C-alpha cells in the first residue's frame, strides 16, 4: 500500500494553520526546519495578478530520490505503507552531507538551526495514523483543503490530477499526491 496526500489548491487561503499545527505537534521550534510549508505563488502586474498557495511537506514518493541519495541508508521507505522515514541517529548531519536535500525536488528534507543538524521531515504523522487519526495538517485545515490516505483511494475520490501551481510532477520519482489545482488560465482577471 502507498499512503499519500490530496491538496485542494482552490481552497487554500495561505493561512498557515497547517504549518503551525505541524510545528506544535512535532515540537519543531521556530527556525529553518518546517515539515509542512506553504509556498505563495504570485504572478502578473497590478491589477492583473494571479496568486496561489501550495501547501507542501513530503510526498512520500514511490521511487524516492532521497532514499537513493543517502550514503548511510538513514532514509528508508516503509514497505507496509510507503511512508518515507528518516533515522536521525544514522544521518551524518548537514555539515557533512546534504545529498538528500539536493536530490529532492520538493524541498522535503529539513534541517534545524543547530550545528550539524540531522535531517528531519514529514512522516505523515505515523503516531497519529497508528491511533486512526488524520495527520495534524489535514485535521487542522480550516477550509478542509487537505486529505491523506491510500493514494489509490485518493485518486478514486478526487481524480488523478498530479499538476498544481508551484508543483512539477516527476514521473521518475512518482510523488504520492493528487491535486485539485488552481491554474492561472482558470482565474478570471479583472479591472
Amino acid at each position, binding site marked *: 500500500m502507498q499512503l499519500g496526500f490530496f491538496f485542494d489548491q482552490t481552497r487554500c487561503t495561505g*493561512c498557515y494553520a497547517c504549518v*503551525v*499545527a505541524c510545528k506544535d505537534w512535532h515540537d519543531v521550534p*521556530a527556525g529553518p526546519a518546517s515539515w509542512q510549508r506553504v509556498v505563495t505563488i504570485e504572478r502578473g502586474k*497590478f491589477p492583473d495578478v494571479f496568486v496561489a498557495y501550495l501547501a507542501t511537506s513530503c510526498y512520500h514518493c514511490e521511487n524516492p530520490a532521497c532514499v537513493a541519495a543517502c550514503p548511510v541508508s538513514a532514509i528508508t521507505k516503509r514497505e507496509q505503507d510507503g511512508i518515507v522515514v528518516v533515522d536521525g541517529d544514522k544521518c551524518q548531519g548537514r555539515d557533512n552531507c546534504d545529498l538528500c536535500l539536493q536530490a529532492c525536488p520538493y524541498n522535503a528534507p529539513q534541517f534545524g538551526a543547530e550545528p550539524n543538524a540531522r535531517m528531519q521531515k514529514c512522516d505523515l504523522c505515523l503516531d497519529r495514523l497508528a*491511533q486512526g487519526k488524520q495527520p495534524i495538517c489535514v485535521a487542522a485545515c480550516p477550509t478542509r483543503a487537505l486529505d491523506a490516505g491510500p493514494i489509490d483511494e485518493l485518486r478514486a475520490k478526487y481524480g488523478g490530477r498530479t499538476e498544481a501551481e508551484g508543483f512539477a510532477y516527476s514521473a521518475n520519482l512518482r510523488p504520492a499526491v493528487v491535486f485539485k489545482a488552481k491554474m492561472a488560465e482558470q482565474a478570471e482577471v479583472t*479591472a
Partner: protein
Amino acid sequence: MSAQESGERAIMTTCCSHCGGACGLKVYVKDGVITRIETDDADEPQARACLKGRAYRQRVYHPGRLLHPLKRVGERGEGKFERISWDEALDTVAGEIRRVRDTYGPQAILLKMSVGDMNFLHTGAMVADKLLCMAGGYSSTWGYFSYEGGTFAELTTYGTLSTQSSRHDFPNSRMIIMWGWNPASTVQDTNTTWFLAQAREAGCRIVSVDPRHTDSTATFAHQWIPIRPGTDTAMMLAMAHVMIQDGLQDQAFLDRYTYGFDRFKAYVTGEEDGVPKTPQWAEPITGVAAPVIENLAREYAITKPAALIAGIGPGRSARGEQYHRAAITLSAMTGNIGIPGGSAAQRSWPAGLLPFPFMMMGIPEMLQNPWEAQQPAAKDMLPLRRFWPWGMGGVHVAQMADALLEGRSGGYPADYKLLYIASTSYPNQYLNVNKHVRAMKSPSLEFIVMHEQFMTPGAKLADIVLPCSTFLERNDIAQWSSTWFYGFQNKVIEPLGESKSQLEICRELAKRLDILHYFDQTEEEALRAMVDGCADISDFDEFRTKGLHKMHPDQPHVAFREQIEDPENNPFPTPSGKIEIYSQSIEQMDNPELPPIPKYLPNWEDLNDPLAAKYPLQLITTHFKGRAHSQFHKVPWIEELMPQTALINASDAGARGIRDGDPVRVFNERGQMIIPAKVSERMMPGVVDVPQGAWFDPDENGVDRGGCANVLTNDAYSPGGACATNTALVEVEKAR
C-alpha cells in the same frame, strides 16, 4: 506513542483571542505543562482553529509573560520596574482609586477597557466596569473603535445592531460581494472561510472590492476591483445610479419596506444638486473604471439572492457612516434584505449581537455607572446610541489622548487623574499613539494601573502592572454571536507564576475598597448558573467535558427575516417602522456633516487634501492574520512566517528606489517608523499598508522600530463616530 502511554491528558477548551472566533482547542497536558494542541475533531462543522490558536502554547510560555505584580521605578515609559507582592500592588491600586475618587470625584477615574478577551465571567471589560461602578462610578469613552461607522448606519437605518445573518447562510448566495473584507486574515467567526469555499463551489460568484489583493481575494474572488481608500461611497452611489437608470431596482421592495428612497434617488440622479452620480463621475474619484462599476451594478441587481458583506475596514474612515449607509441602501435596492442568501449589507464583524447572548447566559445586566448615568449624553453623538454598549461615555474614544491632556479646560467633562486599563492594549491600539504617550507621561495623570499579560508598550508607561492569566488558566464560557456553538473554556493549567484572572484581581480590589457582594459565587457556581439560565444547554457536565456545545440549527439565521415576511407585525425599530434610507433620527441631529440620506462628502487626508503634496500615499492599517490586534506579538512560530512590513506597490517602490526587504521610513506629521518594505503587485498604487497591532518601540530619536500603525493614524473621528484608522496620508522613503 499514544497520549495515554505518554502520560498526557487531553482537555477540550475554546480559544479566546478577540478575532470573532471561539474555535475548539484540544490541549494536551503532562505534569501540569501543555505539551501540544489539537483542534476540534468532533462532529462537523468542526470549529477548527487558525494559526493563532495553534501557536498558543508559545504564547502561554512566552518568556515575556508577566508572572509577578510590578511597580514602576524609572520614568514612565523607561521600562524600569521592580517586583512587588500582590498585597502591595492591590493595596496601592485600591488606595489610589479611593484617594482620587475622594479628592476629585469618581469622574477623575478614566477606565479604558475593551474586549481583548471574550468570555462571560473573567473578561476584563466586565469585571473592571463592575468594580468601578460599585466603587462609585467612573468616566469612560464612547464609540466602538472597530465599527462605529457601521453602528451609526445600522441604528439610523434599521434601528438595531442585529443585522447579521449567520455564516452558514453563504452557500445559499448566488453572488457575494466582499467589500473591503478579508476573513482569511480576520477570521470573524469560526469557519467563515469554510462557508465561503462551499459557496464558491456551489457556483456562487464572488467579487472583491479592496485596495489590496488579499488572501480572501486570491482564494475566493472571481474578480478583484481595486478601489482607492475612502471612496467606497462614491462607487456605491454610481452603482445605485446604474440601477436607477436601467430600472433595475426592486421597486416593490423599496415601496413596501423602506422610507425615503425618492430623496436618495433625487441625489443620485443629480436632481438635488445638479451632479448625477454616474460611473463616469465616480471613476476619477475611486480609480475604478466606469464600465467595471456598471457591470458590477447590473450583476448585483439581477443576481438573486446576493450578499453584500460590508467589511468594517472601509467604515473606519473619515466618512465611515456614509459607506455603511450606502451599502445598506444598495442591499435594499436589490431586495436582498431578510432573505436566505441575501444580506442586509451586514457589517462583517459579528459582535453586533453580543448583548443578546450575554443576557441569555444569565449574566446580570451591566451595572449603571453612578457617575455617567447622571451626565448628559456626549454632545455630538446620535442620541439613541447612548442606550447601546459603549454609548455612555462623555468623550469619544478617538479623543481620549486629548481629553487626558486637556481635561475640563479643553471642554471635556472632567480632569482625569487615574487611568485604569483592562483588556486592551492602550495606547498601542489607539489613534495617534504618540499623543497618547505624551498624555500618559503627563504628571497631571497621577496614577496608571494596567492589567496585562506582557510588558506591552502601555504597560511600560504604567505605574503598577497586574499580571493576568490566559484563558487556559481558568474556567469560563465563550460564545460568538452568530456562531452555532457555545464553548466551555476549561482550565488546562494552573496560572503561570503569580498571575491571576481579571475577575480575581477585581475581587481582591473590591475587598480593599470595602465593596460588599462584588462577586459572591465560586467560579463553578457562576458558570453553572449561566448554563442553568441558557435554554440551549441542558447538561452542564456534558458541556464541560465536550468543550463545545453545537446546536445544528435546521436553517441559518437570516437577519430581518421576520420584518420582511410579516412586516405588519414586525416593523423595523425606526421612527417610520421601515428601513430608513432617509433617516429621521439623523434629520433630528441637524448636522450638515450628517445628511439624512447617504452621500459622498469630502474627506480629510485624501488625495484632494493640500497635505497630499507632502504626503502623497494613502495609508491603510489592515488586520494581520498572525495577530488578533496586538496579541500574538513576537510568538516565534507566527513571527517567522509573517514579519511586520510596509506593503507598497512595485511602481511606488520603484519611484523611490525601494526594493523588497529594504528598510523604509514611513512618516507624516504625527510620527515615523522604520520597518522593512514588502514590494508587491497585490497593492494598489498610491496606497501603503502598515498592518495594525505591531508593538510601538521608539528608539532614542522617537522613531518607532516596531511598526505600530498608530504612529501614523489621525486621532480624529468621523461625524458619525468612526475611528478613521484607514484615513491618513504618509510618505515612504528608503531609510538611510
